[in-house]
């Protein structure tokens, strides 16, 4: 290993190394991407194609893709589950759009409120001297470490007594609460990085503190708030256990709806795949938008020193 090249670890390239590198990368790529590819392909198949052996892999080449599954997601194309291209379109809406709307209303509402309330609390922790600040911050974090299943029982009882089950309000409040610790920790880390001289200068110029926050701090914090919001939204969007238990018939979001599909004997896999694609699409888009904040987000801000640039 007597190389004198300046950057050996990244620049030493033998043919064997290159082959291994691309081989490893290909295997990893196939392993992680194939299920997603298969989901999309399945959503484009006719009922008879879905469980065909040997399977067909490439639309237009192996099989003729169809949009019937996507039509079936939103409308009652067929009540009995037999979908063919000959089936006359029934334009009556299926129940999926309603569930999707519920997901948007509950997830969106919870996200907006959690980000606003959490940001205000984070600002307070960052700028004011609060008695027992470290303890309070730890208290906020600790509510997030709980296995959700542990608080499932008392939440269920509490919501039953407070008449919050089967309501938008209850599940939204719950998602706000699960989102809050995350927002407080992320935004506190962010505010700590903005110099306090910004608003203090504005205050010497005659602004009150609240005006300074509104006019100086908030515009500065908006990008971080949006990145944080995406994480809160995705968590609420994907949540299953609580909504399944608390809202089985009203204000139900999409995950319990999808889970219910496998309860019926014959699963319409094409339709299930199409529903999943529609449901996952926003998450994929949001993941793309926040990819550079992802590490900080998924570690709750615990990894903050290094910002990883993923985009080239």
């Amino acid at each position, binding site marked *: 290993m007597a190389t004198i090249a300046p*950057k050996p670890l990244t620049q030493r390239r033998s043919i064997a190394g290159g082959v291994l590198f691309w081989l490893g990368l290909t295997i990893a790529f196939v392993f992680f991407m194939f299920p997603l590819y298969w989901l999309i392909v399945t959503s484009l198949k006719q009922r008879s194609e879905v469980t065909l052996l040997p399977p067909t892999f490439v639309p237009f080449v192996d099989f003729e893709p169809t949009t019937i599954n996507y039509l079936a997601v939103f409308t009652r194309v067929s009540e009995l589950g037999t979908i063919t291209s000959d089936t006359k379109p029934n334009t009556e809406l299926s129940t999926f759009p309603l569930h999707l709307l519920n997901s948007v209303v509950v997830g969106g509402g919870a996200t907006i409120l959690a980000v606003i309330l959490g940001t205000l609390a984070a600002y307070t922790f960052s700028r004011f001297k609060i008695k027992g600040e470290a303890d309070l911050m730890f208290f906020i974090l600790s509510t997030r470490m709980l296995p959700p299943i542990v608080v499932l029982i008392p939440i269920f009882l509490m919501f039953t007594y407070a008449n919050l089950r089967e309501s938008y309000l209850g599940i939204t409040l719950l998602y706000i609460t699960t989102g809050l610790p995350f927002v407080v920790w992320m935004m506190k880390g962010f505010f700590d990085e903005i110099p306090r001289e910004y608003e203090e200068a504005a205050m010497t110029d005659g602004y009150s503190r609240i005006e300074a926050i509104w006019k100086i701090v908030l515009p500065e914090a908006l990008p971080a708030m949006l990145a944080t919001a995406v994480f809160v939204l995705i968590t609420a969007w994907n949540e299953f256990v609580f909504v399944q238990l608390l809202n089985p018939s009203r204000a139900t979001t999409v995950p319990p709806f999808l889970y219910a599909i496998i309860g019926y004997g014959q*699963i319409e896999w094409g339709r299930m795949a199409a529903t999943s694609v529609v449901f996952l699409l926003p*998450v994929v888009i949001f993941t793309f938008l926040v990819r550079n904040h992802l590490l900080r987000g*998924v570690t709750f801000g615990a990894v903050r020193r290094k910002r990883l640039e993923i985009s080239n």
Partner: protein
Amino acid sequence: MPDTTLPRDSASLARPDSSGRLRPRYTWLTDRRLAWLFLSPTMILLLLIAIFPLIWSLYLSFTQYSVIQDAATGPRWIGLGNYAQLLSDKDVWNRFTLTASFVVPAVGIELLLGFALALLLNRNFKGRGGLMTLMLIPMMLSPVVVALFWYFMMRADVGILNYFIRDLLHLSERGVFWLTSLKVAMWSVVLVDVWMWTPFMMLISLAGLSAVPKYLYEAADVDRASAWFKFRHITLPIIAPLVLIGVLFRTMDAYKLFDTVYVLTGGGPGRATQVLSVYLYQLAFREFSTGKGSALGYIMLIVIIALANLLIRVLNRLRAEG
């Protein structure tokens, strides 16, 4: 208490209308009032929806109570009865072992695979950004959809995985009974978890690798250090704390995993994949042993706190050394 004394000598911020002093509005909103106003909604919500249920749950764990049967009479205090019953039950211990037999392989494989991938991706090549963005998708997806779709791919008869194994590669005559074999089912759950969360370990390892200063390697090369020496004495000490944070997060999440197992296997076949969370759900919402379920929840909580403390202690020691 909010700090109301502010430095007055800070530099003036350039504003178009800063020629004349403005008269501050909302002066009745002192810093102290503002702190109260800003903090109270968050604190009230957390106390009401996170802490209060927890205390209630603690109380219930000391009672004989079923939401269905005892609705009229209410909970009956039985002290440590539930705890004694659970801890002397061999089935409960089995489920702790079962959970460990999921957490350890899952987190272990994710760590090794994620780190290996990070080593691959820790160089510049065309399409690196796009590839990484694609790889991040699995962990952001809904566990319900992920489990549902793997369920489809793992079907024994016409599932695509068995098509590869049985018909294409001829590795097995009848294919693998991914979800119905007592021996395989848990590994199928591990596989799905690995698919979802390896990108996370990759991401965190990559952050560690890119934090290693290049000049250290250059200096080691001048001394003709071996690749292993460089890895052991330069790379590892720097990335270890970060990677351990990843392990901490993954262990805690894997320990409380519910959705994926619930949808993929429902705890079956038999009880082969009935990890603690699924068992707790079964206890509380199928058998309606509310009191006993609460007690199990608290046992789980104590274990996870102990586990997290252990890992954090290792982490702090690593940091002190590094």
